[in-house]
């Protein structure tokens, strides 16, 4: 272990959240719960990026009173990256949920194991 684990406890929490989401993906058979797990992973990445841009004692990157110094504002780039991530996450979630609806209409179940068994039986 390195020296900065306690100082970086926010990042540590985001990494643990990431692994919880990944475990959700692996352990649950229900498709909706898998999608929830993927969203938890997304959120943990936003937390990580936001913490990487944070500088103690600096304010939000909105110019006030004409002060344009690096010592006054936090890093604006991770905020933009989080914005991109949120948009992609919304699109991917909508796409996955609509595919899940189609699968449910076809097989009347959300259980992924059962769906794959039936697919095998149908010879697909």
């Amino acid at each position, binding site marked *: 272990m390195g020296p900065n684990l306690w100082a*970086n406890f926010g990042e*540590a929490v985001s*990494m643990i959240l990431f*692994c919880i989401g990944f475990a959700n993906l692996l352990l649950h058979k229900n498709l909706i719960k898998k999608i929830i797990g993927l969203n938890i992973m997304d959120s943990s990445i936003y937390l990580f990026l936001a913490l990487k841009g944070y500088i103690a004692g600096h304010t939000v990157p909105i110019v006030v009173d004409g002060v*344009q110094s*690096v010592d006054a504002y936090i890093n*604006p*780039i991770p905020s933009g990256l989080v914005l991109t991530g949120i948009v992609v996450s919304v699109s991917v979630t*909508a*796409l996955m949920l609509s595919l899940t609806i189609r699968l449910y209409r076809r097989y009347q179940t959300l259980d992924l194991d059962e769906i794959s068994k039936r697919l095998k039986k149908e010879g697909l």
Partner: protein
Amino acid sequence: MKKLTNKLLNWLNAEDTSVFDNAMELKMQEPKEEKEETVEQRMRDRLHIKDEVYSESETKEVKVLRIIYRTLAIILCAFIAYNLLIAVSWLPRTGEFDKPVNNEVSARYIEKGLQETGAVNIVTGMILDYRAFDTFGESNVLNIATITVLILLRRNKKKLPNEIEEKENDRLLEPKNDVILQKAATFLVPAIFLFGIYVILNGHLSPGGGFSGGAIIGAGLILYVSAFGFEKTEKFFTEKTQKVISLSALLFYCLAKSYSFFTGANELESHIPLGKAGAILSSGLILPLNICVGLVVAVTMYTFYCMFRKGEF
């Protein structure tokens, strides 16, 4: 003769049922009642199908394999978590200024952003001026997601007659004339729309911008639909509205930003004034681009809701 053929045609098209009067006994169908034996028989058949046809019965091997899979998955996740935590423990301390993330790129955005883009909000100036191509891609991602959801979930109108009943059922299930919801929506929806428009128009001056403002307006539209039903929204929002708004917003974004990139790359003089920093009408193209992004996001949110709820607008 003509009367008779008319009657015959009517009978063939099943328009006139008067020929059946007194000739047939019409009776409402009674709801199907099931005896306990038949229910038991049905459940047994279901189990039989499950075991024999789909072979879904739990054998011992399947159970053992499942336990092995679960333990391996948990061990894998714990291993990944341990490695990530080690990596985090070697990262520079949170909140420190001297770390590689704070390099000359962010320094340039902070020090020259106001003069080069005209936006007081540095993040908006960054995503809609320096990195406008990236934001254009994001808007396109949203539009493509809308198109795929439309492909997957839109109901085929000509397909089956019993789908009309289903649609009517959805309309019946709507909370029509729910007084509490409608009264609340009467106050809330205009306020939500106003707030969303404020957030979009002040995107270059204060926190906010096209994405958050568009999401707020989309939420207002969804509240309006849940309170007053689809009959009200059909008057101003149909499939055509969605197409026209999102495509024209994307086209305007593309053309405006192409002009700006072309003049910037060839060191030509741009005819877009930056204006006085801090005013609403300032910072060049950022305000119209924010409006475009907001329109795309609002339309996308509402389309997702309609598709998931009903399969049509």
